[in-house]
């Protein structure tokens, strides 16, 4: 694989900034979900680029209380350093979600419920999310602007057309649109960009004692992978070779064939 050139990263970045500005111009009120992971942190950096240093909408962590301590520490540091308008949304407890879901997916359903509560309380019409198409086969089918019903659900069979860069930003009252400015990035792109731009990241992504996290979910449903990648350069070199999928360590994707589709159609990120 050839190394991504600076102009490749510039093109990816420009497209993301274009999408962010379209969202800010056309959708209001607006908020962004920040999972504190590598993707949404890189996205947050591009938000600052798009609005010349400002972050003109709230950035929200959907908090199940189960994130790694390193994740909370990283959040607090970045909120101070970047002066972020951050908001911590506490998700409802596990006994409030669909008990027929497999165990790890129930965790995700708590986040979905937290998001739904947030949207209805703040009347958000737009939610910006840092998902990518190469993460997962269902996410590969997403649009950049994805209208959701009032209950947050997604009906993939009726997705509106999205021709060139004309995004469908109008939604009926009570409904909202999910905005996905990172869909066209890959995992490798994100790390190469993080390295080039010197964007901070949670240290759990680097190997300690032969293990590292490739994808960060809640501490009880995410497992590390064997790895010797102790620096960002090592991580990039490792990813250039691997065939293992990024979310292999995320239990909720693999509990049943339709686990992730069920999560997403009911409103998961």
């Amino acid at each position, binding site marked *: 694989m050839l190394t991504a050139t600076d102009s490749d990263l*510039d093109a990816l970045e420009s497209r993301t900034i274009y999408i962010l500005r379209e969202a800010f111009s056309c959708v209001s009120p607006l908020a962004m979900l920040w999972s504190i992971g590598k993707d949404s942190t890189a996205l947050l950096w591009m938000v600052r680029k798009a609005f*010349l240093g400002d972050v003109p909408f709230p950035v929200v962590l959907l908090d199940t209380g189960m994130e790694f301590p390193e994740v909370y520490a990283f959040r607090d540091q970045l909120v101070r350093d970047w002066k972020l308008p951050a908001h911590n949304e506490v998700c409802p407890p596990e006994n409030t979600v669909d008990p027929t879901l497999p165990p790890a997916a129930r965790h995700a359903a708590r986040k979905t419920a937290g998001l739904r509560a947030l949207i209805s309380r703040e009347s958000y019409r737009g939610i910006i999310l840092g998902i990518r198409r190469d993460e997962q086969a269902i996410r*590969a089918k997403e649009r950049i602007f994805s209208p959701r019903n009032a209950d947050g659900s997604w009906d993939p069979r009726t997705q509106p057309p999205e021709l*060139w860069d*004309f995004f469908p930003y109008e*939604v009926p009252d009570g409904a909202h649109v999910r905005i996905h400015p990172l869909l066209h990035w890959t995992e490798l792109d994100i790390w190469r960009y993080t390295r080039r731009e010197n964007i901070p990241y949670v240290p759990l992504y680097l190997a300690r004692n032969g293990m590292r996290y490739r994808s960060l979910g809640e501490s009880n449903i995410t497992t590390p992978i064997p790895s010797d990648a102790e620096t960002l350069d090592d991580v990039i070199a490792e990813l250039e070779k691997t065939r293992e999928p990024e979310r292999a360590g995320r239990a909720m994707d693999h509990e049943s064939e339709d686990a992730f*589709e069920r999560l997403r159609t009911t409103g998961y990120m």
Partner: protein
Amino acid sequence: MRQVRIVMVGDVDAGKSTILGRMLVDLGQVTPQRLAELESSSSKRGVPIEYSFLLDAFQLERDQAITLDISRIWLRMPERDYVFVDAPGHRELIRNLLTGASEVDAAILVVAVDEGITLQTRRQALFLQWFGFKELLVAVNKLDLASDAETEFARRKAEVRQFLEQLDIKPIDIVPVAAREGENIAAPAKRWPWWKGPTLLESLEALRPHAFHAGGPLRFVVQDVYRRGTNRLIAGRIESGTLRAGERVVFWPLQTDAVVTAIHRWPKEVPEAHAGDVVAISLDERVFVDRGAVASYAGDAPGMGHAIQATVVWLGSEPVAPGESLRLRIGTREVPVTLQRIDEVVDPDSLEGKPSDSLGKSDVAVVTLISRELIAADDDLDDTSIGKFVLMHGTNVVAGGRVRAVIGRPRSEGATDVVAQISSVHREERVRRNGHAGGVFWLTGLPSAGKSTVAMAVQRMLFDRGTHVYVLDGDTLRTTLNVDLGFSEEDRTENVRRTAAVAGVLADAGFVVISALISPFAADREKARAAYPESFYEIYVSCDLATAERRDVKGHYRRARLGEIQRFTGISSPYDVPEKPDLMLDTTRESIGESAARLMEFIEETTRRKLLLKS
């Protein structure tokens, strides 16, 4: 560029998802775990390993063995990455196919050897032609089903060649494959010794990524204007050409111009920016610019007109006829348009244009659209900058379009050119003769706030001092110029637009124009500024509602309270208080005489100072 995006098109069941799935498996890009998931999903549905499930991730897609929505899958090769966009073949799902085709660099057309070029294949190829694809790669699939593969492939190949010729599309290669067997996908065909050409994988090397139009005229599309203290930063994307700091640019369609003093790519500034770059710029002058404007260099303007002729693909489920009101989105601009004429609809069978009095779903047609507003656009035939658009009906996208020609015809029939003439008398000459500059002093405020009273008092004073002055009174104009307008939001907007246009003409002729209109909407007032941006002042005649209602000069408040007048500003229709008026007159606290004097001073200072500076 290390990445090429490719859309797969072809009829339902031609095997598009299977080809992609097979290619990934054969190249070892699917993990053993994923392969095991695939086998279990397939056997659950009683089928041998189904490669298409790699892309058809939805339960419904797997159960019915069809693709419903586009999917994207990455293929990592040593020289570069490929992103495949797998599009559904169903006629009902063309919105998904078009979405997929609009995000790629190249296309592969898949034809099943047993079916050949079906009507749906013709339709899809027609869409590709409409998108501007000049060449594509063809895979003739399912050769394992043919009793004499060589002969049947040769027959289909000739058929495809002839068909694409009609569309003026060049086949880069026509390659035989058998996706289920893996023949000639990633590895050379074992069973077809007659085939000396490339595998499908090898033929991908001929596909080229699309780039933004680096050459070509500058087109900077404005997304937004951000205020940072007193600075205004104009945010947008360069669609073509190069933008350089220090150069003067013109913003269309309002035709305001200014010099670019800085190009910001936070956290740094850059001396120039190129096609595809998303930046923010600072200008040397405060000219009116808003979302939707397009900047160019003076000598390289886009086409301007009230009508465009375009090729469209109709996506709406309801048929439409001429006369339909739609919204045009082009660049970042939105304008109301009317479908004036359907010039022709392409018949997918014969590929010939035929007259038609309506447009139906998946029709490809040439149409003419007209608008009350000026549209800035480029002809999109050579895939340059501001030529692609969508049409909206309500909140639905009902068509994609590409501009063929901008027709410079104004709203009324007869006139043929909308390019402004250069006047034989220069503005400075008028200023010198008159002894003062022209300008627009735009009074806004609630009914009975005192706008007309102040305007008339000041007009008298100025006239007596020899100033060329004229008052444009809202109520008076509603009996003449604006007699056809009511009080709906659109009509109020139009009322302000027309009055501003007249004010601009008078100011250009050297007059001091004082307009007295409620002009309740901030956005309309901001647009009015563009009628004479050199010297336009927003004057807020402030008065609290209770005082205005007590005055009730014309008895309107009483009638509005009784419900006899609908949409009365301040009672049943909103008023946007000016955020930063150039001058505020508070008629609750000061007398008409005091307000008039302050306005008088303000006008004298601005129109006479201008003279001192300029002469």
